């Protein structure tokens, strides 16, 4: 639909400058026109140079994925055209710098060439203003009110002074005049709608806000793509929230410091990506053994090893669920939206405190660095759970010493905090209730049961946080095709099942956000209620499919992809259609 519903992509070499900012500005401008936006970006792993792109999808209704085809493509250079033309809608619009001529241009599409570089360099003598020239032209071409961009420029550069603001507005106007000269042939345009109350945030930012809302007081991290911006945000902001951020020497130190802080009574977290998470694995086991609450956000990227640092994948699930020697209880949560990143982080802290266990958040590159318009977050409604603290006046020890690891029905034992009565040693060795090293056969059995018993509390977390389910069932209770999905792939699945329903296919989806412990009964019921069940995920081996099969004893059809970019809605839709055909044929 050409009015208010399309996908814009901006591509070019980062040496050209301003590619990502062009997209970010556009996203904000569209949001201020009362539309929903959803961005997706990839950037080169090189320090300078290499192709970057940002995609902005807009619509009047909620958006769950970044969109399959590019309707409006803005190319800074020829290489960008060559890369992005494969995703270009053959009836779309290309806006390009006419220092090059696009080859193999589809006759059905529209192309508007402008001398953007020349205008910025020669006419304005301000090469970095090229992106504003482009946005000016965009404004004229698609009726996006120029004032919206002007206000954005003031909001963005106001602090830098009038001169900077004026230079950018001049560039915007210059582009606008160029745009007006064009004889527009395409149908795409914007109609301003009433402003909606929306926040515009990225996934990683939402994790930071969620951590603060949950009461995070210590953050420790080490730079790694695509999690570094969480470290940077924490280094800037945690101190004025009365916390201590630490940039340490490696990821082992990061989780070590998190556990030390947790032991001393602070809520603490670290954020990393696959390689860093690998290094943390030994301490993950220690956290489980010593029963220390902690939160690890793993912003997944394509692996194994160094892999593709700037590309997206959902391939750390095995590591998150099974990583570590010995039997290591932990909770694994996966957000699927920017809003989800906020709430999942709150839940992660709550579950860590409730179960005195490590909690892993599995986000990924695409989710981390996309921005979305989301409804405002009501902080008043956030429930913050704190660990059960040992209080000698309430927890009588009958003259006995304090039992840090006292056996209990839930498996949780009240924890004492240094500086208060109830000293003990947090122990990585197997230990008895007092925390004293102990390798009696029955004791290891009993203590293993105690530690794993706590995971039942995680399954019951909805009792502590009304509204939390750990999964969401979309569509009918019974259908020919079911789709089980986790993480950032959930958005494409939601749109794909809508398309399939429109085509008369009987389909339902189960989005699982608590991956471990798994709500086994729900997943089993879902699989048993569907003809066939598809499980799409961005990894090679079908990691969640393995987990689901192992936990439920039921089969699913694994659908995997490792191209470094998220699923397209169409890909999942086609897979659903194929399964539906097979199911109906069998019937």
């Amino acid at each position, binding site marked *: 639909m050409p009015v208010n519903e399309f996908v814009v992509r901006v591509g070019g070499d980062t040496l050209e400058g301003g590619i990502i900012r062009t997209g970010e500005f556009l996203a*904000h401008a569209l*949001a201020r026109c009362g539309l929903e936006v959803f961005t997706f970006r990839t950037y080169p792993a090189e320090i300078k140079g290499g192709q970057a792109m940002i995609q902005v999808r807009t619509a009047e209704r909620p958006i769950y994925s970044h969109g399959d085809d590019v309707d409006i493509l803005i190319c800074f250079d020829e290489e960008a055209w060559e890369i992005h033309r494969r995703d270009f809608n053959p009836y779309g619009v290309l806006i390009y710098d006419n220092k090059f001529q696009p080859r193999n241009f589809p006759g059905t599409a529209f192309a508007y060439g402008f001398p953007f570089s020349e205008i910025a360099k020669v006419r304005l003598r301000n090469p970095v203003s090229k992106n504003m020239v482009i946005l000016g032209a965009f404004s004229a071409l698609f009726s996006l009110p120029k004032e919206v961009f002007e206000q954005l420029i003031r909001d963005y550069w106001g602090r830098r002074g009038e001169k900077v603001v004026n230079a950018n507005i001049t560039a915007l106007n210059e582009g606008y005049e160029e745009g007006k000269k064009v004889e527009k042939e395409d149908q795409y345009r914007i109609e301003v709608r009433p*402003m909606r*109350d*929306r*926040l*515009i*945030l990225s996934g990683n930012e939402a994790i930071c*806000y969620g951590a*603060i809302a949950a009461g995070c007081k*210590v953050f*420790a991290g080490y730079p790694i793509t695509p999690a570094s911006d969480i470290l940077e945000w924490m280094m*800037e*902001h945690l*101190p*004025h*929230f*009365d916390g*201590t951020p*630490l940039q*340490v*020497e*490696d990821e*082992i*130190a*990061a*989780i*070590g*410091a998190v*556990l*030390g*802080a*947790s*032991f*001393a*009574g*602070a809520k*603490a977290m670290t954020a990393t990506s696959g390689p860093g998470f690998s290094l943390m694995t*030994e*301490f993950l086991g*220690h956290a489980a053994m*010593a029963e220390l609450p902690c939160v690890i956000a793993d912003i997944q990227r394509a692996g194994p090893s160094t892999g593709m640092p700037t590309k997206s994948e959902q391939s750390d699930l095995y590591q998150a669920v099974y990583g570590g020697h010995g039997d290591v209880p932990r909770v694994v949560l996966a957000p699927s939206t920017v809003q989800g990143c906020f709430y999942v982080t709150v839940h992660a802290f709550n579950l860590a405190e409730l179960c005195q266990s490590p909690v892993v958040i599995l986000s990924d590159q695409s989710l981390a660095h996309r921005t979305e318009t989301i409804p405002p*977050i009501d*902080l008043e409604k956030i429930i913050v759970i704190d660990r059960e603290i040992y209080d000698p006046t309430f927890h009588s020890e009958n003259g006995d*010493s304090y039992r840090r690891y006292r056996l209990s029905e839930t498996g949780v034992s009240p924890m004492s905090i*240094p*500086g*208060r*009565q*109830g*000293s*003990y*040693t*947090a*122990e*990585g*060795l197997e230990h008895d209730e007092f*925390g*004293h*090293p102990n390798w009696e056969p029955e004791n290891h059995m009993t203590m293993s049961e105690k530690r794993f018993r706590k995971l039942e509390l995680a399954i019951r977390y909805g009792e502590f946080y009304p509204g939390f389910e750990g999964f969401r069932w979309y569509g009918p209770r019974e259908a020919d095709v079911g789709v089980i999905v986790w993480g950032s792939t959930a958005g494409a699945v939601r749109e794909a099942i809508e398309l399939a329903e429109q085509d008369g296919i009987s389909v339902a989806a189960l989005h699982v956000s608590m991956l471990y412990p798994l709500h086994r009964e729900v997943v089993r019921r879902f699989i048993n209620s569907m003809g066939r069940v598809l499980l799409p995920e961005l990894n090679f081996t079908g990691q969640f499919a393995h987990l689901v099969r192992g936990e439920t004893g039921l089969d699913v059809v694994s659908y995997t992809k490792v191209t470094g970019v998220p699923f397209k809605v169409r890909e999942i839709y086609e897979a659903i259609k194929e399964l539906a055909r097979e199911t109906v044929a069998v019937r």
Partner: protein
Amino acid sequence: MAVSAEVREKYKSELKPIWCPGCGDFGVLTATFMALGNLGLNPEEVVIVSGIGCSGRFPAFTTAYGFHSLHGRTMPVALGVKAANPNLTVIAVGGDGDTLAIGGNHFMHACRRNINLAYLLLDNNLYALTKGQASPTSLPSQTTDSTPYGSYENYVEPCALAILYGATFVAREFSARARKLADVIAQAVQHPGFALVHILSPCVTFFDTYDLYKQQIKELPPDYDPTDMHLALQYSTDMENRWVGVLFKTYKPTFEERIQSIREKSMQRYQSVTLSDMLNRRRV
């Protein structure tokens, strides 16, 4: 100053040390009780963090809070404890493998951060808990089960390393001199900043160095100036005479002070901005 057995009892846990009779670590434990007694510290305000090895079992033998962490990882854990609550007294205990092999990286960064804690390096010149393999401080003359033909690596001297890494207090003592050791541990605990106490703590089972160190150790000359870094390096690296006492001492802002100043700067920059304000600023 001697401390009565009664005071020492206050810090002694119900667990009996698992160390071999005659192990140097007993001397360190007693000296630590004496130091804590002398300083009048409440065991519940003290956190003892350890790694893995014979020294790793140290915290459980005290009534202080303990954190028996992973091999080589005492420093990150101690850093986290201090980040969460700078008012706690933190004593880290590590062996020579803990500190200089698997945890060598953390040791460097802990020194340069100048975290306000005392680090007791219990050096027995080998891995004893795993029954006698070579460590970074194995002596050139020493053969072990893992170096049957002698060592093929050079000895690494922890005091000199700590000085160059940026530690602000570096001392050496011998575990057999409990009172002197207690005094130096007390000084290390009181020092504002990273304080290393390199303790020669013989392993009676796999490499008994009591006689060797009795011959080799020498107290620093009375006119020794611990603020002279070059002198400190020279005395630290002398392998003929193992000098004991406070080798090096200087003052730099501590980790805790720097964190406090960052917090003040951040408060100044963001005044009383709340999370709700920050979210509101992200409104479309």
